[in-house]
């Protein structure tokens, strides 16, 4: 089944909204535009915080097809916050190891582990088709009575005002208008809202295309990411193999720039590539095949008054490193707690500026890493190719060359080095996440029961104390023993002020009540030392 070339995973029922048919335009406090993973996650964060949520989305279905498959530990931690993490891990294929091959050798020239720090709840990566992720998010949203998803309601115009915007919505049978204080534009890389507002989206196009084949077959292979430079079945180019649930495998072949897309996806033309990886005697079935080209770009700013962009609408990267959805999810995790506090009158509206500062920094880091990988995979000059091949040649024999092999630096959380919300360290720390960094997970034991630290953090701010004497404040406090791993990862006797997105706002060897108060104020206003 497909709709305008987009394959359909699951149809969703279109219905007329209460605002159809004219009359007074209803004013919403915010509207989420888009039902991709980012819009859905944004909606679920806000719904779980008790807000009335309306999503409008052009699609009246969950799309299938070859999109995101690799979800990072950071994304899984976010899915845990949303209550669907365990369902994703259970359905998905867990992997931690990546191998890089060169030429026809069956020994990898390089190998990496995505979870160097063990004893954490979530694995380094889980592979799962994007439609399952979207489906689970939709299930969670549909189970709540403060959520309405308007499938098949497309934004076809926006009139941006200082305090509120008016959206024109086009559906299959009519048009209507909605007014909203905030508009959360999660409408994907071709964002119509961005276009209507005439906003920039600049960056680089990479002159290369990739054949992405999701193929079903039965063969026992390890759950690892395999990447080839110059394999015999795609000489002079690259290939990538990933395992997905349901015996589906993602095969990805670099094709070069000038390709005939229609010819490339003909079964007889694809077969030699697929056979190159599978061998001659394995039966396979094509699940979905397409040819992609990629770009790295972002908007200069994600916050435009009360219209706020997140996910692919705000930034786009090449898929090497799995940084698309994995970087959109921290966008909305970051945005949701800030918007929540603002709507409750507990933080000034200027707090949104910190979303812009932090997540444009996140996007820059993703674009930088993704561009570097793409330059290694698709060298832009003869000299660049010479260096790339020299690295690969040396990597087999010499340890020093292996870290230089760049087949995609996989998505990892961005530390916010210059966040206006962080209080710089006053005390010396030998270990532990720094202000602006995400908390590291660790098993903790309380009253004889084991928990994961990340699961135990509050939805709001949490004061984490490793020792016996936490400062007395009105912030939710978690007092933990500093024995064992927790002490090793955070330091004995220390106190951390943790934001709702699990980022450290401040930390102390010896915290006073006033220290915590000042740091908390800074973390919700951006003001203070």
């Amino acid at each position: 089944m497909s709709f305008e070339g987009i394959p359909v995973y699951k149809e969703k029922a279109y219905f007329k909204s209460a605002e159809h048919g004219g009359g007074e335009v209803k004013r919403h406090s915010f509207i989420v535009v888009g039902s991709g993973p980012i819009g859905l996650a944004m909606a679920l964060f806000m719904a779980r915080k008790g807000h009335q949520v309306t999503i409008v989305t052009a699609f009246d279905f969950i799309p299938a097809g070859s999109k995101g498959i690799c979800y990072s530990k950071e994304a899984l931690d976010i899915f845990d916050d949303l209550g669907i993490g365990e369902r994703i891990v259970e359905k998905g294929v867990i992997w931690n190891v990546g191998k890089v091959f060169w030429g026809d050798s069956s020994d990898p020239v390089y190998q990496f582990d995505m979870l160097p720090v063990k004893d954490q709840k979530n694995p380094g990566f889980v592979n799962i088709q994007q439609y399952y992720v979207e489906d689970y998010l939709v299930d969670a949203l549909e189970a709540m009575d403060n959520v309405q998803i308007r499938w098949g309601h497309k934004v076809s115009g926006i009139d941006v005002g200082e305090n509120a915007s008016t959206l024109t919505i086009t559906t299959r049978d009519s048009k209507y208008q909605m007014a909203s204080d905030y508009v959360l534009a999660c409408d994907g890389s071709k964002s119509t809202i961005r276009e209507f507002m005439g906003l920039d989206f600049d960056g680089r196009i990479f002159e290369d295309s990739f054949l992405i084949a999701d193929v079903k077959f039965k063969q026992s292979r390890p759950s690892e990411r395999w990447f080839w430079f110059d394999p015999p079945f795609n000489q002079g180019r690259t290939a990538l193999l990933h395992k997905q649930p349901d015996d589906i495998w993602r095969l990805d072949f670099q094709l070069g720039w000038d390709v005939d897309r229609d010819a490339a996806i003909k079964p007889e033309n694809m077969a030699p590539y697929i056979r190159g990886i599978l061998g001659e005697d394995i039966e396979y079935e094509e699940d979905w095949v397409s040819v992609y080209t990629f770009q790295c770009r972002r908007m200069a700013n994600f916050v435009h008054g009360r219209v706020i962009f997140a996910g692919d609408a705000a930034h786009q990267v090449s898929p090497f490193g799995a940084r698309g959805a994995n970087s959109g999810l921290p966008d909305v995790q970051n945005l949701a707690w800030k918007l929540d506090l603002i709507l409750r009158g507990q933080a000034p509206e200027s707090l949104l500026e910190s979303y812009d500062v932090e997540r444009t920094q996140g996007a820059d880091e993703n674009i930088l890493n993704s561009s570097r990988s793409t330059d290694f995979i698709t060298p832009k000059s003869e000299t660049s190719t010479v260096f790339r091949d020299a690295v690969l040649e040396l990597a087999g024999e010499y340890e020093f060359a292996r870290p230089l092999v760049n087949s995609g630096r996989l998505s990892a959380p961005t530390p916010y080095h210059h966040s206006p919300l962080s209080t710089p360290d006053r005390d010396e720390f030998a270990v532990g996440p720094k202000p602006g960094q995400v908390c590291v997970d660790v098993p903790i034991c309380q009253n004889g029961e084991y928990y994961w630290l990340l699961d135990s953090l509050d939805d709001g701010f949490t004061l984490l104390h490793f020792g016996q004497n936490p400062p007395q404040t009105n912030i939710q406090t978690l007092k933990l023993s500093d024995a064992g791993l927790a002490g090793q990862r955070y330091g004995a006797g220390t106190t951390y002020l943790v934001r709702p997105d699990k980022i450290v706002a401040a930390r102390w060897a010896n915290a006073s009540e006033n220290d915590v108060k000042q740091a908390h104020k800074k973390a919700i206003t951006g003001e203070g030392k």
Partner: protein
Amino acid sequence: MKTSESLNTTANLQDCDTVYEALINAHEGLSDKDSAKLNAKLILFLINHIGNKNVILEAIEKSQAN
């Protein structure tokens, strides 16, 4: 290793004539392509040996100037 270390641009090479000769001889009879590869490997070995990012970036910058 000091991170503040900067590129040494004073004479520092032992028996410079022998080293220079070895460098030239290594390229003898090589095609431009093979020579380029040899140079690339040599640079990779040496930058790893140096290790200090600032020193290497400074050397790149100085090499870019005409």
